[in-house]
């Protein structure tokens, strides 16, 4: 009798633990999906901002890089992983945004266009950090021996980190400064 009770308790405990692990994995998978969607949205916003800057200043190389990056975004959203081709296109756009031609054009461009590109570039870096943090959390939980042993992740492939060079362009006047003294009372 005692043996039966012990076995039942053990089985229930193990099942509860595994269910709990599975629900954590589920939640993490959702977080990866949500952060990937967020990352793609920011990449799209950056490409769009780059395209308008390119148009208003006649920067052909930047326009091409923006188009290439933009072309990949639909597949990025549809597919479960972000692949190397997408990374290449985004790297090329980051480089184009930092190119001397763009730095020169910044003086002529409408400040709004430049600000939009810089803000979008900064948001890409944040979105990528959020995405990669989620991927890191999945990989550390899915890598546990018990999780692999009982195939808790099912057939879900391990999500991949999205590694691009997203360093934002550096402007001559340093980091974007808030409208400090202008709006401060008493300054």
């Amino acid at each position, binding site marked *: 009798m005692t043996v039966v009770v012990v076995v039942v308790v053990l089985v229930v405990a193990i099942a509860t633990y595994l269910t709990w692990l599975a629900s*954590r994995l589920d939640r993490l998978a959702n977080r990866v999906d949500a952060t990937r969607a967020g990352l793609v949205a920011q990449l799209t916003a950056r490409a769009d901002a780059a395209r308008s800057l390119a148009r208003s200043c006649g920067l052909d190389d930047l326009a091409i890089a923006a188009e290439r990056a933009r072309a990949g975004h639909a597949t990025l959203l549809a597919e479960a992983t972000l692949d190397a081709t997408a990374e290449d296109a985004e790297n090329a756009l980051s480089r184009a945004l930092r190119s001397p031609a763009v730095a020169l054009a910044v003086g002529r461009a409408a400040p709004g266009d430049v600000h939009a590109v810089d803000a979008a570039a900064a948001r890409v870096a944040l979105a990528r950090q959020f995405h990669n943090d989620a991927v890191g959390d999945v990989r550390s939980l899915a890598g546990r021996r018990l999780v692999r042993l009982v195939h808790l992740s099912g057939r879900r492939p391990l999500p991949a980190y999205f590694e691009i060079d997203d360093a934002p362009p550096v402007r001559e006047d340093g980091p974007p400064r808030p409208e400090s003294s202008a709006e401060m009372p008493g300054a």
Partner: protein
Amino acid sequence: MKIGLACPYTWDVPGGVQAHVRDLAETLLDAGHDVSVITPVDDESTLPPYAVDAGRAVPVPYNGSVARLLMGPVSAARVRRWLREHDFDVLHAHEPTAPSVSLLACMLADGPLVATFHTANPRSRFLTAAQSALQPSLEKLRARIAVSEAARRTLVEHLGAGAILIPNGVAVRAFEGARALPRYRAVVGVGDSDGGAEGHGSEDGDSPGGDGPVVVFLGRIDEPRKGLDVLMAAFPLLVEQVPDARLLVAGPGDTEAVRSRIDPSLLGRVDLIGLVPEADKAAVFASGSVYCAPNTGQESFGIVLLEAMAAGTPVVASDIDAFRRVLDDGRAGRLFGVGEPAELAARLAELLRDPAERARLVERGRAVVARYDWRVVAQRIVGVYEMVSGDSPVSVAADDT
């Protein structure tokens, strides 16, 4: 936006995290957001209208000081009810590694969760031990924010988690245009150009120790890491170079012990005023020609430097990482080698003799401070909220884990 903020430490006990949550909440409210804070509190009448009581916290010795913590079914029920009643677009938990309300909120909620990590602690045995217990709650966070590079390093090393960096804000408005303490208004400091410029002394009695330039120190006077000893060793050397220099020392601690170590010939030049109320901090900074931060320990963030700069006082600080970063590598304030009284005295003397350079530092200081203005910092935090929220509001987790 409907924003829920969880604060882990007792609201009516002074502390950096509580101040951060309060300033953030009030800035967000000013910007038109809908904000509710849940926090432990001892005296419920001290709670502002936007805050909700999570219960009384229990003091526990932790990490060399006393942490007041709160876990248990009653608070869990309160947190759950708070979550149900508000339908937040985003839940922002502060310091969710402390066993208190923030951790409870992370355990109980599901959806757009954001957390800010405040502590920088390179060798936290607590975090190392608790890592696997904290992991399930921390992995719900869609965005992790660290207030300093050191806090981020702590997070990476102990919990293997990345984070973005958004610094603490400074309530710039509380420091702008500060006037010197009444007794110091006779001095023409940079931050106080209108106070009885030609007068010797003022209507409030003679200014202590003459009317020479004033070096200000603010911090615990018996906490070695705050470095008052370095400044005390530098002061006689400074007087050799600037004979009428004076020293104003504010902060809690044993003032008599400090006084007994001062060279009697200099006693008249050193004004030890002890603990000053929070409301007088700006005036203390404004009383100085220079503010000195001789800290010898690693600080995670130089908020006091920013406050001094916001009050319009140039800064001389020891060359530790956090200070170097805040002072823009020495462009917005002078740096000296950690624990080097001779170098400190030289830097102070240079600045006290050069009002034009002081004015330049004050200008650059203002530009630096603007980046840390709560109104600017809160905007960046709202940017994070916008990036993680959207699909569905914060809900109470089905499995309560």
